[in-house]
């Protein structure tokens, strides 16, 4: 310690940094932690890109694309999958281990506080999603995707609504279960929802009773919303409403049941 900067109460009165600086610092920190973790990058970026390439190039799989190109048809589902990996799987696992290791409690005692920690986490997820969207769209363009500008705003609304619902689910799971259980559940649920939850395969095309259920799931609603946005340039209202209701219900449960210890 230098003579001009001793520990103790002689220095400046302790004060918090401005709220925006604290939250942005936490967001950057969260995004760095996720993007530095090899497994997280695999789940969040590599798997969606591989899924897109495989679904577009793997012509041995018969897909009815409603007269669209394969890449145009598959891209919305892959983006929905990417949103789910970042806002649900990776967030649930990271938060569960941070909770077990006391990280949530330590940061809650700093000027960041619990509210700032939550805001930082959500912004961090959005930053990771920005990286995902750029990489996946670049891959899609390389595969011949023909974007239309009219779909951009509704698609962004869809990403934000989907992020809200799945982050709420991530916090509910991470705040109530043991870290190891969260690790297993978050991966399993991602797989189940990706295959049978109306993400890649639209809810309406799923077999039998799944078709009726999937469009009411957050996964199916997110898939339908992004397909409406990117294929038709519209914002489908029912899926948006479904995601909003899930966000309120899951967020309310998470707020009531989340345990910090």
């Amino acid at each position, binding site marked *: 310690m230098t003579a001009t900067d001793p*520990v*103790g109460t002689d220095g*400046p*009165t*302790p004060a918090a940094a401005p709220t925006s600086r604290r939250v942005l610092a936490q967001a950057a*920190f969260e995004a760095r*932690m996720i993007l530095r973790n090899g497994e997280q990058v695999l789940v969040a970026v590599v798997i969606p890109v591989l899924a897109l390439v495989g679904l577009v190039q793997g012509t041995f799989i018969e897909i009815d694309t409603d007269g669209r190109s394969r890449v145009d048809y598959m891209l919305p589902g892959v983006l929905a999958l990417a949103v789910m990996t970042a806002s649900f799987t990776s967030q649930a696992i990271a938060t569960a281990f*941070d909770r077990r*290791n006391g990280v949530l409690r330590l940061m809650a005692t700093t000027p960041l506080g619990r509210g700032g920690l939550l805001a930082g986490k959500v912004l961090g997820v959005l930053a990771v999603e920005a990286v995902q969207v750029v990489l996946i769209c670049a891959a899609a363009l390389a595969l011949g995707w023909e974007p239309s500008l009219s779909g951009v705003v509704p698609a962004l609304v869809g990403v934000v609504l989907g992020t809200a619902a799945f982050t709420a689910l991530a916090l509910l799971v991470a705040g109530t279960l043991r870290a190891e259980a969260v690790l297993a559940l978050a991966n399993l649920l991602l797989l189940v929802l990706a295959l049978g939850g109306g993400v890649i395969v639209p809810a309406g095309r799923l077999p039998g009773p799944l078709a009726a259920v999937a469009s009411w799931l957050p996964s199916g609603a997110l898939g339908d919303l992004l397909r409406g946005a990117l294929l038709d340039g519209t914002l489908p209202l029912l899926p948006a409403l479904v995601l909003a209701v899930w966000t309120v219900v899951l967020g309310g449960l998470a707020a009531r049941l989340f345990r910090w210890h």
Partner: protein
Amino acid sequence: MPHSPAVEVHGLVKKYAGRAVVDGLDLSAAAGCVTAVLGPNGAGKTTTVECCEGLRVPDGGTVRVLGLDPVADGPALRPAVGVMLQDGGLPTGVRAREMLDHVARMYAHPLDTDALAERLGLGTFARTTVRRLSGGQRQRLALAVAVVGRPRVVFLDEPSAGMDPQSRLAVWELVRELRDGGAAVILTTHLMEEAEDLADQVVVVDHGAVIAHGTVPELLATDVDPRGSATLVVHTATDVDPTSLRDRLGTGFAVDRRSGASLSVTGAVGSSTIAAVTGWLAERDVLVTRLDLGRRTLEDVFLDLTGRSLR
């Protein structure tokens, strides 16, 4: 001093699943003082400091830190309070120096992190991730994180756990410096040595309540021997059977064999008693390595207060 004492706890009650782990605890910690909360595992030490840190909501009683309620006034209080958790609270994937710099960003006027890192010897593992740090390195990093915001009140939960002697000395030195700089330092420990060397005030906690408090000399002066007599403790180079010493000293003295190569003589110990004991040992060609008169250790006090049986 704007708030004296810096930390004031009255009648604190905290229950887990209906069972009170803290039950009517009172505590007061002054600015410019190190207050040690000493107690066996499960005594309620961590729960008490977590209530002071705003991490747990008390079921009863009042907690005031710098005159504020840690839960209701959290945003106003947090910039002035530094916390070192028992389980560290450091993310495993983060590099040591990165974590310190990150927490420093939460404060308007943090300490210079270069100087702080050098001070606590973080330089040798600055780019190592927390997952790969030793226990002592983690504790030093956690302490740096706790003090980087220039806190007025510092809570350290078992700061020396898992530390090598060098780390411990560095930590103790920083704790003294914080105190001398006017901060209130509250540390929990079950290490007698730590409380004895560092603390200005010791609060002994057991079963969720305070069973003794005072300065270290006050606690050591507590006389639990009903005869009010002194105890002479003789450490020897080799083990020795004290039976014939009992005959030599007579019935006025209690002679006990202590753990290892040491024995104790309790009674009206005077200079003739000491001469008799050393003479008896010389006859047996046993070398005296240390001789303590009347000085009980905090450990003796602690064991007298909390009981010697395992639990």
